[in-house]
């Protein structure tokens, strides 16, 4: 079974040299810790920055320099800044190679729900709907089941969608999966997890 860091590390293995990548809030943010140093990868932050650096030391904190999670960050030599409209021209226009984001539910045909639970506090979709509709490859990182043990890989999402048929790949604590036309294809099983466990914890159609 993979923990948060192992899931992030697995996602990082999908990143190739030269890619422009947008990382979501939560576990996806950890992915940047696992990108091999020999790869030239540029991180985009949708609030208007390309070439995002690491979190700052205290003396370098700049209130004018934050990421989309409103966290303080740093710039790099290659950094550029731009308006929100330009930022989403990059995203919607298909110029970003990969987005890695969290989810509440994913369906066997790649529908994604990650922004709203009816009856609970709704915070908003932020840039998630734009990202999933525009970025070339969308990778979701999430736990395979919810706290009650119910599958989050479903035949059909029960929550309001962020996008329809938008998920390409999925990384859970049980392994790595791809959404193909027949369903959820197992690509890799995490150490300590078993096929039987995955079958039992997956409601959507598994392709083995």
């Amino acid at each position, binding site marked *: 079974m993979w923990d948060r860091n192992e899931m992030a590390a697995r996602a990082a293995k999908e990143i190739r040299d030269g890619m422009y990548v947008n990382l979501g809030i939560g576990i996806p943010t950890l992915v940047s810790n696992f990108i091999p140093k020999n790869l030239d990868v540029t991180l985009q932050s949708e609030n208007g920055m390309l070439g995002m650096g690491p979190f700052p030391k205290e003396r370098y904190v700049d209130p004018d320099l*934050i990421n989309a999670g409103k*966290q303080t960050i740093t710039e790099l030599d290659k950094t550029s800044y731009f308006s929100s*409209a330009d930022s989403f021209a990059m995203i919607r226009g298909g110029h970003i190679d990969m987005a890695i984001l969290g989810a509440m539910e994913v369906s066997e045909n790649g529908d994604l729900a990650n922004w709203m639970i009816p009856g609970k506090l709704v915070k908003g979709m932020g840039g998630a709907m*734009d990202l999933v509709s525009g970025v070339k490859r969308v990778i979701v990182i999430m736990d395979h089941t919810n706290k009650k043990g119910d599958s989050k890989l479903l035949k059909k999402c029960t929550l309001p*969608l962020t996008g329809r048929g938008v998920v390409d790949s999925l990384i859970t604590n049980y392994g790595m999966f791809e959404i193909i036309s027949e369903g959820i294809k197992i690509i890799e099983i995490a150490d300590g997890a078993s096929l039987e466990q995955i079958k039992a914890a997956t409601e959507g159609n598994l392709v083995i």
Partner: protein
Amino acid sequence: MNKVFPSAQEALDGLVFDGMKIAAGGFGLCGIPEELIAAIKLLKVKNLVIASNNAGVDDFGIGILLETRQVKKMISSYVGENAEFMRQYLSGELELEFNPQGTLAERMRAGGAGIPGFYTKTGVGTIIAEGKEHKEFNGISYILEEAFVADLAIVKAWKGDPEGNLVYRKTARNFNPNAATCGKTCIAEVEEIVPVGSLDPDHIHTPGIFVNRIIQGEHEKRVENMTLTE
């Protein structure tokens, strides 16, 4: 024409009215027009419709206008950090229209560019698309989103000159250039008003034609989520 005003309140003189539509720049608490928001609070205008990516926090940013019940409706993409906002929204006192972040930015951009609407893939197949015109281009479905034109745009820049030319700093740029264009009138507040000619014309982000009034202000620039290395 003199665009330079001595204070936020004087810059707002004659421009505010109950029920007006305002476009505000800023992302979280970064690059928000702090002094103009504070002055709008003092002017006590009500039933405001505000398009802004976020709604501030309880005691800072647009949050201070929620505290005084001056806002009728927010058009935002994410409002997670504001308890008073949630209270008013859940009790039905405040209307909320969620826009995907890129759609909100493009609505402002289009509004400023004289484009009444645009088709986007964002939100297709979700509740955002309900009731909106759908159209196929090359076999892909898009929805029609309408431009946003504000009675007043309020923006924050780093430096500006008396012509209204603006330069933003780092990620404090965000929605500001887009908001600036979509107001029938735009007021910019800057950290420093510099003499005409001292900004490099090649490096101006918002040309002065979009800015009607400009003030120099003192900015707290509060950090919302301090995150340090190690």
